[in-house]
């Protein structure tokens, strides 16, 4: 009789672990083990036909430091992230505030803003390919009507990266808008009434009431935006294939080329490890540092 509470507790623990087991098994098999295997692979040479993989220590990382395309991909990716993150979040917030108002055709506008999110990126990229086409593309017809000279948007290294960035922003903003819209709908309407009675301007109300209350959403959206800035490369395959002359090569695209075009799996593993470490540390910083500044209700 005396042992029963203990036995009950351990039984509950076993029960709990059993319930966790399926998820745990999947997570270990498809996330943790591959991550560890990648780390191990990054210290070995790429096996080729009859030549098995050999321990090479940090050689793959030395190759990376010497690889000019890798560094160009890092630079490109920083520009890409630096532009897509603030632009897509800002645009999402603006659109959410706009469609949160009472107005005619609200559902239609919401749907229009959300449509890019629903479309597959490959289809989207094919549409944008014809937007950017020189001479008769949509963009050219527009700038041509204004009397501006013709440009080869995707074929010129000075504009190509900006072009693929715009596509990513367009694709992402609608998705983030949904989160902001949901958050805005949960705000207490009496706050707005109180602000109106006090005579607060719209801007003041946004800055002092809505924005602080939206902070948890912003944190969530920010983490997603950062991850997407390194993950969203589908459109590169259609629009530029990393060209011209690597002007639009992003890290993940470079990784794909090294891994599945050059079949240099050892080097690809090294790039993966770096990418994972960078992304994990960014996420950790966001959780531990920014989280403290977020105001939860």
């Amino acid at each position, binding site marked *: 009789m005396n042992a029963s509470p203990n036995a009950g507790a351990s039984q509950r623990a076993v029960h709990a672990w059993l319930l966790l087991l399926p998820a745990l098994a999947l997570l270990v098999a498809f996330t943790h083990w591959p991550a560890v295997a990648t780390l191990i692979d990054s210290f070995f040479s790429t096996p080729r036909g009859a030549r098995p993989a050999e321990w090479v220590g940090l050689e793959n990382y030395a190759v990376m430091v010497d690889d000019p395309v890798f560094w160009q991909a890092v630079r490109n990716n920083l520009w890409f992230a630096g532009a897509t993150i603030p632009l897509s979040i800002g645009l999402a917030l603006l659109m959410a505030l706009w469609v949160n108002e009472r107005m005619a055709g609200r559902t239609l506008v919401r749907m229009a803003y959300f449509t890019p999110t629903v479309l597959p990126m490959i289809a989207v990229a094919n549409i944008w390919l014809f937007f950017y086409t020189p001479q008769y593309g949509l963009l050219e017809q527009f700038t041509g009507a204004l009397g501006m000279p013709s440009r080869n948007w995707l074929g010129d*290294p000075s504009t190509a990266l900006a072009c693929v960035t715009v596509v990513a922003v367009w694709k992402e903003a609608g998705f983030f808008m949904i989160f902001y819209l949901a958050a805005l709908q949960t705000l207490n309407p009496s706050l707005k009434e109180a602000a109106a009675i006090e005579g607060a301007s719209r801007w003041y109300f946004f800055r002092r009431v809505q924005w602080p209350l939206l902070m948890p959403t912003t944190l969530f959206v920010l983490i997603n935006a950062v991850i997407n800035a390194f993950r969203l490369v589908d459109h590169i395959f259609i629009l530029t294939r990393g060209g011209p002359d690597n002007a639009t090569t992003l890290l993940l695209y470079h990784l794909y080329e090294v891994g599945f075009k050059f079949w240099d799996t050892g080097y690809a593993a090294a790039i993966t490890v770096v990418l994972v470490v960078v992304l994990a540390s960014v996420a950790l910083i966001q959780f531990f540092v920014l989280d403290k500044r977020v105001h939860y209700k």
Partner: protein
Amino acid sequence: MQRKTFLKTLSAAALAACATGALAQTLEVPFYYPVAVGGPITKVIDGYAEAFNKAHPGVKVTPIYAGTYQETIVKALTAHKSGKPPATSVLLSTDMFTLIDEDAIAPIDDFVKTDADKAWLKGFYPAFMANSQTGGKTWGIPFQRSTVVMYYNKEAFKEAGLDPNKAPANWKELKEAARKLTKKDASGNVTQYGIQIPSTGFAYWMLQTLTTPNDVLLANEAGTKVTFDNPKVIEALDFWVNLAKDGVHPKGVVEWGTTPKDFFEKKAAIIITTTGNLTNVKANAKFDFGVAQIAGNVRKGGSPTGGGNFYIFKKAPKEQQQAAFEFAKWITQPGNAAQWSMDSGYVAVSPAAYDTPALKKYGQEFPPALVARDQLPVSVAEFSTHENQRVTKVLNDAIQAALNGTKTSAQALKDAQREADRILRSYK
């Protein structure tokens, strides 16, 4: 009661499955075939597999549509690494060295035993075999092969005062024609470029349409050495760059995929692209168009070949390999090769196929279909080396840098040569 019926049905179904399995005893031959999207071509391939299976009881060739060429080789090589490759796959002829390096494919010579087999292997156009053989062995069977040709707008030629029945035959004529064909509006913007050579994706292939007439090869036969910094290669790239500088060719990098559309929209009077676009151009050009061989310079004309070969995978079971070989042999017989050429627009792989009544008749009705064949005697192998995709990317980047003006042709190609030498150092 319900449960009992369920179990009964289940066991009956299982029994039936066992029975059919035991009865059939057919040999499954998985066959990866690259096709980006579904459509008419998958039906054609299904049709061939069905006809072959009917003629060969006990064998079942199963086509598996695996995406683009790039996606297909990724799938095939991953399957090879896991120890369960397909019996056969159609992959780019230029992937030969990659597949050899990965120890993934078996030489075709292992299966060629009878005199009839030997005669069949000799029957292909030598230009296509150049990309299928190395080190004295044959590794691929030519199947869907192409070359590069020049498409030109005959109406634009007439407007510009050029003879619509005579395409530019050399670089001088080509440049002159391009100049005459370039049209500008009142404010000086170009409305129609004289010539357009695409430079995304297959830039190295397009460069070969300039280096081949300039009588220079980009790589040796063993695929271990490249000659990017040869003065003749630099001259060829300069010719391309100067077309853009002179304003008769679009500036910057030109997209491969939209080039046919630029031609239909009359934004480019001459385009240089694969014969694989012939059916597309025939269906969509709303004007009279001509197809011509690549213009010559030092020597008369000359184009690289392109397209896909059959490969047989080494780790597949022996009987699957043999069946795959039979299938490849069957599908490249003159009659089938001729039918395939008409169905797909690819060049038929043997002279015998062009002697079949069906293809003869087709050629008389639609002469542009024969241009690619007539070009074969002066055609060379598509650029291919060990570490193929990596070296190709180096060359593509160099071409794009030159076209964008970030480097001179000479500088770009010298840098590319150094980088390619570094990549290929272990193969010497």
